[in-house]
């Protein structure tokens, strides 16, 4: 297996003085909250940390022991999972799967196919490598939706599935100790995301986990049924597009702005069948949750998967949540990339994606005349703890009340608890929930995917009329949140909060500077 090139300037952990502006500085709450505890020395000796930005010109491959053909991170992960020493883009290979995730919408179908093809009495390949996370249509009276959670319970019982984050009391999510919420956020919070692994999920936003330096992508029920029985999948090795984001992240900019910027640049099919690899000084300064937001929308550019090289931030997050051993990989200095994009992040401005496409990019400030009817903050893209912290920070700085209904849907139980318990820096000890209440937002709702994808008719915050909504979610195709004529502006939590305060699409700098 190709060994990584050792950089001549070894990676140095950032001290708190040069830490990103995102360091909100609040004290540790539970293991789930995203705190920058720097443990630079821990286990860093055995891991080869590579500066992807500095290809080695002075050391030939022969002297470092790397194979002649350099591989990208994704190629390396897939090669190792296919038990091969080398793969190149275009190779069709059988890959071993480390984790398979499914939820209430696709789980029943996946298991149905598994039984049909492997037999009614068949057993899954490894009951500890399957994670079942009900999250899509949970808090609804829709009988079929409720039935689907029950079906998953039966399958998990029968197969002895270790990780089933069940919910039985739909009237009170807190009464369900196992229930988590949005699968992609839960996977990370529960320690199922590990560098170097292969994670598949029956959901397009499975690519979120690429933030952890693993290969993570979405698959359909039939492929999932196959994995359930075999633990393997047939994959074509994708070529990698490299996105290097450098520069200091402005205080009003978030990862959502970065990915909307990129998708606007390359279009909704700009990365089809390809890997999107993100690196650069800006990326290194992002927290895990921000990296998750970035990788989450890779699929919106058509991308097969997204990856970010693991570093101290990654290791710190992961090692706090799992004791399963893992081994990160890094792109070789002489790896081939099919495209190279560079951004100076310090020059970027808050952006939105206008209806009806995630690549319909516009500067937020240029949309200030767009009158809106509501704001939605939630989903795997924009419903994590830091997303709510950001919105609360802006509301507090503004000191005003929202002008339109503002719906808040924490992604998971942990996020919901953070919203009610964590103090927002600079607010004199107020929690997000208190600030939201003072600003006149709706009460934070039960954690789930919620209205991001519309859902059954009784879904909280569903767009049931042709209204204009600014949302921290991931897609705005016609009918995405319910009504076919609904108009959805995708935005960062800062932009969403600012827009709620004015009743128009608003650049967050109106309130943050």
């Amino acid at each position: 297996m190709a060994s990584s090139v050792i950089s001549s300037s070894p990676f140095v952990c950032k001290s708190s003085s040069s830490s990103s502006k995102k360091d909100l500085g609040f004290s540790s709450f539970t293991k789930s909250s995203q705190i920058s505890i720097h443990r630079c020395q821990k286990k860093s000796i055995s891991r080869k940390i590579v500066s992807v930005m500095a290809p080695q010109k002075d050391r030939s491959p022969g002297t470092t022991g790397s194979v002649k053909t350099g591989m990208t991170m994704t190629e390396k992960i897939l090669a190792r999972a296919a038990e091969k020493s080398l793969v190149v883009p275009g190779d069709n290979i059988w890959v071993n799967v480390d984790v398979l995730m499914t939820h209430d919408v696709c789980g029943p179908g996946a298991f149905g196919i598994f039984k049909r093809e492997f037999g009614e009495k068949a057993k899954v390949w490894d009951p500890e490598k399957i994670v079942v996370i009900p999250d899509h249509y949970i808090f609804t009276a829709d009988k079929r939706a409720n039935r689907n959670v029950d079906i998953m319970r039966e399958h998990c019982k029968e197969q002895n599935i270790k990780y089933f984050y069940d919910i039985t009391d739909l009237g009170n999510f807190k009464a369900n100790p196992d229930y988590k919420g949005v699968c992609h956020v839960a996977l990370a919070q529960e320690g199922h995301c590990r560098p170097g692994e292969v994670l598949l999920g029956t959901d397009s936003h499975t690519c979120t986990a690429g933030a952890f330096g693993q290969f993570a992508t979405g698959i359909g029920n039939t492929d999932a049924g196959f994995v359930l029985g075999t633990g393997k999948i047939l994959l074509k090795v994708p070529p990698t597009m490299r996105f290097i984001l450098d520069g200091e992240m402005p205080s009003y900019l978030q990862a959502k702005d970065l990915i909307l910027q990129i998708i606007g640049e390359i279009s909704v099919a700009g990365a089809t069948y390809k890997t999107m690899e993100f690196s650069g000084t800006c990326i290194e300064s992002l927290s895990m949750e921000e990296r998750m937001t970035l990788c989450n929308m890779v699929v919106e550019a058509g991308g097969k998967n997204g990856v970010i090289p693991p570093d101290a931030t990654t290791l710190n997050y992961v090692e706090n949540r799992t004791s399963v051993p893992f081994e990160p990989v890094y792109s070789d200095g002489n790896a081939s990339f099919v495209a190279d994009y560079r951004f100076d992040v310090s020059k970027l401005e808050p952006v939105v994606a206008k209806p009806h496409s995630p690549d319909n990019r516009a500067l937020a400030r240029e949309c200030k005349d767009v009158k809106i009817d509501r704001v939605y903050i939630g989903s795997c893209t924009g419903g994590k703890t830091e997303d709510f912290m950001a919105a609360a920070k802006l509301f507090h700085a503004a000191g005003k009340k929202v002008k339109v209904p503002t719906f808040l849907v924490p992604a998971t139980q942990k996020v919901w608890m953070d919203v009610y318990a964590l103090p927002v820096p600079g607010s004199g000890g107020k929690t997000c929930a208190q600030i939201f209440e003072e600003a006149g937002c709706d009460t934070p709702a039960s954690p789930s995917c919620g209205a991001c994808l519309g859902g059954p008719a009784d879904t909280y915050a569903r767009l049931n009329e042709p209204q204009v909504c600014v949302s921290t979610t991931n897609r705005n195709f016609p009918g995405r949140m319910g009504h076919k004529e609904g108009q959805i502006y995708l935005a960062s939590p800062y932009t969403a909060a600012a827009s709620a305060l004015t009743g128009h699409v608003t650049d967050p700098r109106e309130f943050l500077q």
Partner: protein
Amino acid sequence: MATSLHSLNSTLFKSLASSSNKSSSSLSPSPVFRLNPTSTAFIFKPLTSSSSAIIIRASASSSKSGESHTRETFHGLCFVLKDNIDTDQIIPAEYGTLIPSIPEDREKLGSFALNGLPKFYGERFVVPGEMKSKYSVIIGGDNFGCGSSREHAPVCLGAAGAKAVVAESYARIFFRNCVATGEIFPLESEVRICDECKTGDVVTVEHKEDGSSLLINHTTRKEYKLKPLGDAGPVIDAGGIFAYARKAGMIPSASSA
């Protein structure tokens, strides 16, 4: 055999012409079916009010999963869409409560196929109240099937009776799901067929011996070469991912379940 085929062809076209909404000019009864000269088995389904596609199988074959089959040539009416048709337009997420592997649910999914299209499309793919579509070929632009990984998308199209999509390009997961499920054939065009065809045109999708395919629009009298299936070909020809894996020895033969 040839003479009976020829007369069959004109019957075929007359039936198709009468079933299409548009009054079409007389269709040339030129033979479009390439038959394996050694085959003797011939299956022909006459066009009835409930079926929309005529399937001619060039050799005796079964469509059961696990058995290889030569690719079918078929024709029927086409339904034309443009770029970036995402999975929520193909099947709105609220129908995601239906489970595609349950036959009754699958039928229901078919009745909702392409329900999410905005009003300006005019024609409905499935007439409200009906379970099947009268269109057998969907013609699309770029990035067809973008969005979700939910298999409900290709499943509902197949359940509604569509046989193939002919698009300029596909989103990755949708294409993969078409191949894995075998519900609908994903074909790629070389030009923007969606700009040259109209909903209701009578088309034939013909598969050739060399692996390439052809789309013939009988209404406009134009032919379009389609791209070969590439890496997906062996999986489709085997009958889906399970059959392919069995052939490759990755999983044991299916036991009767």
